[in-house]
């Protein structure tokens, strides 16, 4: 039973990690129907920014809490700037183009940003400081679920809830839903669609940046390639949960994380990916739009 609980929490942690990134994919897809492949790179840039800020601040002897807050804010702002710019440079000019064009543009952006960080920073792995301290009250259960696991779990839950509320109850959320349903109609009723899309990218990028900081602190290392690897798994999770749906992204991530953990624990880690992707195929056969996705209605 203990072993089951240990695996359960390993799976939940992994799922939350995927979830924090998957939320950004799903938001952008929900609104403009674009798979933003550069999202993983925004996450990576967030991790790098918080790494640089945290390193500088710790040299000046700031307390840990201040470092975490300032690094998180700096990473969120900086990554948002990147997300906003990427959208403006690479996607906006292609808004009326066939669906394939922005997709290729997104892949190009992803490769560009990876290599930019590779050249501007380093190709080596860098040690990421432990920004999440070991809480004393977690000590009795530390062998099952660590402090950083807990922080990531809670953050994912809070972020998912906040996003759902934002989209349901605020003015910008309403505008987002309108844009998602019918962009032309949204323009006709006076919604500034460009601004709504920009806002979506900014929110998604800020989330990715905070995810980047927490996850890097949990794993303890970063390099220019982490975004690509995490991005692929997170994207899979978003599809599994029904791309376009916020709770779906988190549910899909949890299902993926738990499958991997239990496959490793009870079968063999050699087959971790085999199980994860078999599950994806199975779910998509029976529910092509994902677990919580809405079936796309054809506009005639």
């Amino acid at each position, binding site marked *: 039973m203990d072993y089951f609980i240990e695996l359960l929490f390993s799976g939940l942690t992994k799922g939350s990690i995927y979830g924090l990134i998957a939320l950004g994919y799903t938001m952008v897809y929900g609104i403009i129907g674009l798979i933003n492949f550069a999202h993983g790179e925004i996450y990576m840039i967030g991790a790098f920014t918080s790494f640089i800020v945290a390193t500088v601040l710790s040299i000046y002897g700031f307390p840990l809490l201040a470092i975490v807050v300032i690094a998180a804010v700096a990473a969120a702002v900086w990554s948002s700037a990147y997300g906003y710019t990427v959208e403006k440079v690479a996607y906006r000019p292609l808004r009326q183009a066939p669906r394939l064009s922005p997709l290729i543009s997104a892949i190009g952006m992803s490769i560009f940003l990876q290599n930019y960080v590779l050249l501007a920073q380093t190709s080596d792995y860098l040690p990421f400081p432990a920004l999440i301290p070991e809480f004393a009250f977690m000590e009795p259960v530390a062998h099952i679920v660590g402090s950083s696991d807990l922080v990531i779990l809670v953050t994912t839950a809070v972020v998912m809830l906040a996003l759902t509320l934002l989209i349901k109850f605020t003015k910008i959320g309403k505008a987002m839903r309108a844009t998602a349903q019918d962009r032309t109609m949204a323009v006709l009723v006076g919604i500034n669609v460009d601004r709504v899309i920009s806002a979506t990218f900014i929110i998604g990028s800020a989330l990715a940046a905070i995810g980047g900081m927490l996850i890097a602190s949990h794993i303890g290392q970063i390099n220019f390639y982490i975004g690509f690897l995490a991005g692929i798994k997170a994207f899979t999770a978003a599809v599994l949960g029904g791309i376009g749906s916020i709770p779906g992204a988190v549910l899909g991530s949890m299902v993926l994380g738990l499958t991997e953990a239990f496959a490793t624990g009870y079968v063999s880690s*050699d087959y971790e990916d085999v199980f994860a992707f078999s599950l994806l195929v199975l779910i998509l056969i029976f529910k092509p739009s994902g677990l919580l996705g809405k079936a796309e209605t054809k506009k005639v």
Partner: protein
Amino acid sequence: MRFGLKRKLFVATVALGFALAMPVTGMAGDTIKLGVAGAHSGDLASYGLPTIKAAELVVAQYNAKGGINGKQIELLIEDDVCKPEVATNTATKLVTDKVDVVIGHICSGATKAAMPIYKSAGVLVMSPSATSDELSDYPNFFRTIAPNAAQAPAMADFAMDVLGATKIAVIHDKGDYGKPLAEGAKKRVEESGKAKVVLFEGITPSGLDYGAIVQKIKRSGADVVIFGGYHPEASKIVTIMKKKRLTAKFVSDDGVKDDTFIKVAGAAAEGVYAAGPQDNSSNAIASAAKEAHKKAYNSDPGAFFDGAYSAAIALLNAIEKAGSTDLDAVTKALHTEKVDTPIGTIHFDEKGDAVGARYSMYVVKDGKYVVVQ
């Protein structure tokens, strides 16, 4: 009319292309071309960069003496990022550039992918670090590091005899380098009968979180974990082991015996054991090479530096003794001529392995690797 312009442009481009190519072909034959191939960028760059520096230092010495048989030595440096699919391009590029001999590649998988190209081109290759046993099948392959066949038993024996392990978990990264190493260690443990292999599994390389496999190791009750693979995965595993309060000892290979591992894993690296090329600190040539490196680059040399330095000396010495860069002549010289290098006075056996190269075990103590045995 437009057709005419295009045609003129085409002719001009071709002419320009020939003009640029001329000086290069004109130079061929005047120098000995020493290729240096390996991971020079990417996440495993720390394995490959020291080889470039070793080659530069040795070549500078030879060139200062007037080269070999009156010919200067020219370095052709090509990056393979430690990836098999890139390594084939790297090898093709070097062969096209008429390379005479190659130092490299660094990673076993990349070397395996590149060897067929060198073999058909008749180019001799000497690696300071590729340990895969299968590479011995190539008659034109040499190395200054002992093969996996020597490393895996060294790791297993150390775990059983020195650490007194009775239950051992063997983990690998499913790669060309790590998996055979893990299999070799497992075989050694099972044959000796001194300990039991309680877990044998491959992990997904570049995984985000190895929490589940660490829990599995814990449940297996292993007192020692033997890991076959490279340092990025190793540092993630030891970090999570520490977080999950797992106290099993961690024994790994020369892919982990790299300062980047200590830098990244930090406190979790303390007490990690790793096999590595033997300690050469008492060798006069090794100390001189280290000094030269410090003087030229203002830093300590990295992983596989001694092996790469030895490879450069051995190759150039063999070319000098053979009096040509012909594959058969150089191969014969490598088999017969003994040469003084940082790893000792070596020659090469029929498998291409340096006679005398062996492994020592190291442990991380206060942020540095120190010799155990």
